[in-house]
């Protein structure tokens, strides 16, 4: 039996053939290494992220998360819900808290859920994967699993927005969280705790609708990593990872920069440090290759 079990909410972007399938692959490997069992919530649906608000009002959006929580409570009773995606985590936890404080919304959601034959108990903790790693596993155990320390690699920890605000991780500061730096250190790499863009917004969903405004912010995030001499950026958020990685050639064309900064997930760092190969660590799914990780994973 696995040491730890959770009810898993993977989210749309992590599905095979979607933009953060690299996140899913690397987290699956990580969970093998740490003896964590993720029980997928059967028939989970989209949370509407933080962009669906134009089409869905408050109750329709909250009903989306209500369905996921209800399905989790029905099929994975007693297990904490764990999400890897920042927006999935945020929407689900936000909905659970809104229902606790607002009886009208809670009752509205129950009536809507009735149409799908479901019922909400709403007493399930909703957590992010990094909380599991920090609170249930711990930095020391992560460190103890390292077979190939990522020595000499300098990594800028880009926490982003929604894995940080409004809930925060491990009681850390919103303005200067350090957990990602501690993870980087745990796998033997060099962290950049003074990376000033660590909680700068990348534009989120507005990278699609307002590409110029968003790419101006992304440019700053990458530039600051170069200024610190970082070899790569690591992040816990799928949209941060994609936004900061995939538009670099468009930014280069627009601003005459020469960016080629790899952007990876914390899970990929751990996979490689734990001795797993490039495929298991999803390094083959990088658009900008993380060469220094490739060399170790070989």
């Amino acid at each position, binding site marked *: 039996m696995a040491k730890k079990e959770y009810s898993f909410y993977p989210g749309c972007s992590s599905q095979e053939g*979607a933009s953060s399938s690299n996140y899913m692959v690397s987290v699956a490997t990580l969970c093998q290494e740490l003896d964590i069992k993720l029980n997928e919530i059967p028939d989970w649906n989209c949370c509407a992220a933080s962009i669906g608000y*134009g089409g869905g009002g408050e*109750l329709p959006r909250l009903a989306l998360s209500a369905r996921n929580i209800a399905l989790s409570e029905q099929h994975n009773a007693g297990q904490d819900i764990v999400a890897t995606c920042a927006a999935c985590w945020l929407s689900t936890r936000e909905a659970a808290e809104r229902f606790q404080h607002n009886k009208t919304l809670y009752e509205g959601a129950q009536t809507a859920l009735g149409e799908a034959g479901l019922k909400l108990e709403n007493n399930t903790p909703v957590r992010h994967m990094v909380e599991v790693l920090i609170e249930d596993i711990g930095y020391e155990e992560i460190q103890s699993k390292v077979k190939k320390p990522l020595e000499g690699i300098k990594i800028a920890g880009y926490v982003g927005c929604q894995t940080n605000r409004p809930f925060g991780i491990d009681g850390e500061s919103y303005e200067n969280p350090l957990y990602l730096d501690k993870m980087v250190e745990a796998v033997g790499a060099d962290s950049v705790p003074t990376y000033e863009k660590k909680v700068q917004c990348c534009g*989120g969903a507005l990278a699609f609708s*307002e590409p110029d405004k968003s790419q101006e912010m992304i440019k700053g995030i990458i530039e600051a990593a170069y200024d610190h001499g970082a070899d790569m950026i690591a992040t816990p958020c799928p949209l941060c990872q994609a936004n900061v990685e995939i*538009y670099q050639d468009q930014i280069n064309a627009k601003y005459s920069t020469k960016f080629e900064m790899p952007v990876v997930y914390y899970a990929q760092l751990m996979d490689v440090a734990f001795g797993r190969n490039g495929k298991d660590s999803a390094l083959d799914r990088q658009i900008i290759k993380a060469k220094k990780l490739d060399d170790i994973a070989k």
Partner: protein
Amino acid sequence: MSDLNTAMTAKYRNNFLKEVEANVEEGEWVKMCMQCGVCSGSCPLGKHWEHPPQEIFMMIRAGKRDDVLKSDSMWMCTSCYNCIVRCPRELPITHIMHGLANYAKRMGLAPKSQPTNQFSQLFWDNMMKKGRVNELKLGLSLYFKDGFGDGVKNAMANQQLGMNMMKAKRMAPMEIIGGHSLKDVSGFQKMIKKAHEIEDQNIQDFS
């Protein structure tokens, strides 16, 4: 209270603030704004807002209904939650902006060609079909939102990006037919329809 006083109170009552309090998500918080401006200074896209959040709150209190609801300001929110965690009075500003944007749409006043307004609706419609977002179709619907000519232009401009994503197995051409889906799409859609009905019933008339 005398009849005259009641009449005067009704006359001077700020209807738009009452309307926002009754009909907009977390709208009851608006009058708690103390006008410090931390939200406006903290917003990553602050310089692009015609009226930053602090100003929006005062405009609501001043009854500037059209100026608020027709503004494209709220659509600049990236949902970064900086304003929420920094607000000294802990107003849920991000949610109020989403709520105002949604309400402006409901009232038919939101700027129709505002790109985030359009994208937000495309996202919702895309998700409603199968219960999960189909990224490929969402991307294409955004490229082609202004017609076929612009669509081809946008698709060509982003061709390299698409090729990169496919090569990295992070975009699948087969998603165009079918794609990921819930098993209980019908129950899912009925649930959301009911949620919309309940929400519609709760909207108060201020006309």
